[in-house]
C-alpha cells in the first residue's frame, strides 16, 4: 500500500495530437515511404490496388503490414505506446476507436477535416457510416474506408433443387434451413451460422438477428437493452437454428463459412457484402451465377429490414508518424471516390463502399450484380451501430461469451442475456 502513490506517478496518459488545418490533402511525395498497419483481409486493397496507384499519383511508396483482425487494435496501440512508432497510417476497427483514442494512438483530425471538407469530399461519405466510423466525443479521428454491413446470401441452385423460396423472415429462414438440411441428407446444409466466439463473427450473427427482430444493443440514452424481447428472440433463433446449420456453428469462422458457401455446401449465409464479388468469381466459387442476395430477414413484430454496421473500418493517422503530410494526403486520397470504387470492385480486396457516389454508381452495381439492391438498402438505411467507447471490445467479447454459452446449451438464453445486461450495466454506468 505504501508504494501506491509512487505507482500512480508512473502512470502514462495517452495524449492526442491534432493535425494542422494546413496539412495537405494531396501533392507529390516522391520516394516518401508510408507504413500502413492494416486488417489482414484488406491487404490486397492496399498492396495490390492502392500502392501502385499511389506511386503513380504522388511518387510515394506504401509499405503494408497486415495484422489478424483480432489483434489489429492491440498492435496499433502497442506500436504507439511502446515508442516504436513504426507506422504512419492505421486501418482501424470503428468499435476499437475508443480504445485507440484513449491510448493516444490516433491523431485528432477534426480541424483538418473541417478546413478541407470540400477537398476531401466529406459530403460524399455515406451518412450511415461517416459519424459512426470517425466521430468520438465530438472529435474526428479518421476517414471512412470500408462500409461493412451484412446481407443474406443464398444458393439459388440449392433453393431450386429443394423447391424453397428465399426467406424474408427469420421463421421462413428456419423452415428453409430445416428442409434443405433434412432433404440433402448431409450433402448440403440449409444454413451456415458463423459462430466462432469473437465479436467479429458470433457477434455479427447475433446482432443480425437482433436488428431483424427490431432490437438494439443500446437504447437512445445509451443504456444496454440486452434482455429486450427482440434480444431474447434473436438469441433463441441462434440456438434453435443450430441443428439445421453446417456443423458446428461455434466452430465456424470466416474461412469455414465462406468455403462452405462458395463450394455449394451451404444454402444461406449472412455475411459481408463483398461476398458478392467472391461468389461471382469463377476461380474462387462453384456457385458463380447461381446465387442470390436479400436484405437480412425480419422477425417478430418488426417488418422493416435493417442491417448492422458489422465491423467497418476507417483510416487514421498514428500520433507517432514522422510523415504526417504524406499520411494526411494518403487518407484523403485513399477514401476518395475513384479509389473507393476500384477497391470496392476488386474481388478479394474485402472492401465495401464508404461513399454514396460509389454505392450509387453503375460501376459498382455491375460488379456486385444481384446484391446491389440489399447493399443499397442496408447502407442507405439506418444500420445498427456497435458501441465504440473505450472498453467496447471487452463488452462485446463478454456478450459473445454469454451467447456462446447459450448456443452450446450450457446455460439458458435468458440467463446469458441477463449476465450480459449486468456486465454492460456496470461498465456503462
Amino acid at each position, binding site marked *: *500500500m505504501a*508504494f*501506491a*502513490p509512487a*505507482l*500512480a506517478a*508512473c*502512470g*502514462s*496518459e*495517452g495524449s492526442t495530437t491534432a493535425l494542422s488545418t494546413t496539412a495537405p490533402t494531396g501533392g507529390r511525395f516522391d520516394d516518401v515511404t508510408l507504413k500502413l498497419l492494416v486488417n489482414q483481409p484488406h491487404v490486397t486493397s492496399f498492396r495490390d490496388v492502392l500502392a501502385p496507384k499511389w506511386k503513380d499519383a504522388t511518387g510515394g511508396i506504401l509499405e503494408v503490414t497486415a495484422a489478424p483482425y*483480432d*489483434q489489429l487494435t*492491440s498492435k496499433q*496501440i*502497442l506500436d504507439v*505506446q511502446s515508442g516504436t512508432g513504426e507506422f504512419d497510417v492505421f486501418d482501424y476497427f470503428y468499435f476499437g476507436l475508443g*480504445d485507440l483514442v*484513449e*491510448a*493516444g*494512438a490516433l491523431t485528432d483530425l477534426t480541424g483538418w477535416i473541417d478546413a478541407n471538407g470540400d477537398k476531401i469530399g466529406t459530403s460524399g461519405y455515406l451518412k450511415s457510416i461517416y459519424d459512426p466510423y470517425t466521430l468520438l466525443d465530438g472529435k474526428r479521428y479518421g476517414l471512412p474506408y470500408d462500409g461493412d454491413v451484412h446481407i443474406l446470401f443464398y444458393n439459388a441452385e440449392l433453393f431450386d433443387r429443394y423447391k424453397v423460396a428465399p426467406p424474408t423472415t427469420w421463421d421462413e429462414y428456419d423452415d428453409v434451413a430445416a428442409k434443405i438440411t433434412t432433404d440433402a441428407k*448431409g450433402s448440403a*446444409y440449409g444454413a451456415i451460422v458463423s459462430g*466462432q*466466439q*469473437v465479436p467479429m463473427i458470433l457477434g455479427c450473427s447475433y446482432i443480425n438477428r437482433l436488428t431483424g427482430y427490431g432490437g438494439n444493443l443500446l437504447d437512445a440514452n445509451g443504456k444496454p437493452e440486452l434482455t429486450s424481447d427482440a434480444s431474447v428472440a434473436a438469441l433463441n433463433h441462434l440456438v434453435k437454428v443450430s441443428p439445421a446449420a*453446417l*456443423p*458446428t456453428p*461455434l*466452430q465456424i469462422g470466416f474461412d*469455414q463459412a465462406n468455403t*462452405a458457401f462458395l463450394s455449394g*455446401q451451404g444454402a444461406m449465409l449472412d455475411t459481408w457484402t463483398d461476398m458478392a464479388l467472391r461468389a461471382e468469381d469463377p476461380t474462387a466459387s462453384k456457385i458463380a451465377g447461381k446465387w442470390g442476395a436479400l436484405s437480412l430477414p425480419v422477425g417478430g413484430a418488426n417488418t422493416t429490414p435493417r442491417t448492422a454496421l458489422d465491423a467497418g473500418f476507417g483510416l487514421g493517422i498514428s500520433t507517432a508518424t514522422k510523415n504526417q503530410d504524406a499520411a494526411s494526403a494518403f487518407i484523403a486520397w485513399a477514401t476518395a471516390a475513384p479509389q473507393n470504387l476500384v477497391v470496392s470492385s476488386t474481388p478479394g480486396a474485402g472492401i465495401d463502399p464508404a461513399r454514396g457516389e460509389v454505392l450509387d454508381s453503375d460501376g459498382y452495381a455491375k460488379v456486385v450484380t444481384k446484391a446491389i439492391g440489399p447493399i443499397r438498402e442496408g447502407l442507405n438505411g439506418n444500420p445498427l451501430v456497435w458501441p465504440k467507447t*473505450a*472498453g*467496447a*471490445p*471487452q*463488452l*462485446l*467479447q*463478454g456478450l459473445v*461469451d*454469454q451467447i*456462446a*454459452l447459450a*448456443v*452450446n446449451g*450450457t446455460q439458458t438464453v435468458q440467463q446469458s442475456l441477463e*449476465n450480459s445486461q449486468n456486465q454492460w450495466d456496470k461498465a456503462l454506468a
Partner: protein
Amino acid sequence: MSQRVPRWLAAPAIAGVALLLVYPTIYLVALALTKSSLAKPLNHFTGLDNFSGAFASPAFTPSLWKSTIFAVVVAVVTTLLGLAIAVLLRHRGGGFGVVGALFLLPLVTAPVLVGVAWKLLLAPVGGGFANLFKAIGLEGFNPLGSGVGAFVVLLVIHVWQWTPFATLIAFAALGVVRPELLESARIDGATPWRTFTTVTWPAIAPSIWVVVVLELVIGYKVFDVLVVITAGGPGFSTSLSPFVIYQTGLRGSFDMGTAAAQTLVFGVVVGAVATVVTALRARAVKADA
C-alpha cells in the same frame, strides 16, 4: 588452505536474477494492484480490485480447476505411456533407433502446426475423420461440438504431442539400470513385473518423478494448440487459465491489471500443485532408496 572467493564474482548472477526474476515479479505485482491497460500501465492504485475482478470473470475460476484437471491427467497419462513405450524400446534392444525417432516427431513439430493439422482432421465437414466417423455409423459426429468432447480432444492431442518427451527421458533412465541386476533377477526366477518393480523402478524412479513434474508444468502451460483448435470454446469448456489470462490482457480492453492478478493467482495454484507433487516425489524416492 582455503581461498576467499571475491564477492563481486556473484554480481553477474545477482544482476541476472534481479533482471529476469525480481523486476518482472515486482512489475507484475504492481500491475495487479493498479488500474492498468495496455495503453496505460500503472495508471492508479486500486488495491485488491483486480483480484475481485479476476474472480468475477465467469471464465477464470472454472479455468483454474480445468487447468489443474488437465495438467494432472496429462502428467499421469503421458508419463505412464512414455514409460511403457521406453520399456518396449529397451526390450527390443539397441538404441533409440528410427522407431524412437519417429516417436519424437510430435514433440518436434511446432504446436501451431499440430493444432492446424488436428483441426483439419477434426473438421466436421470434409475433415480427415469425418469419413471415418461416417463409416462406423457416426455420421455428423463432431467431438469438438460439445464441451466435454472438446476437452477430451485437447487432452488426447496434448498426450499425443508430449508423450515422446516422457519416452525420451524414461528411455535414458532405463539405460542406467545395471544389466547384471536384471540378469540376476531373471536367474532367480523373478517375473518381469517383479523385476520391474524391485530392480528397475528404484533405479529410474527419481527420473520418472522429474518427468511427472515437468509434464505437469507443461500441462498447465498449454496454449497454442488450444487457441488453434477450440479458442477456449465451445462456451468456456476449454478455457484454461493461460488462455483466459491472454484474453483478459490482450483482447477486449487490454485489462493488464486484472490479467496480472489472474497470473499471480494462477502462479499460486501451479506452485501449490507442483509443491504437492514434488513432496510426493521426495517421499516416493526416499521409500525406494
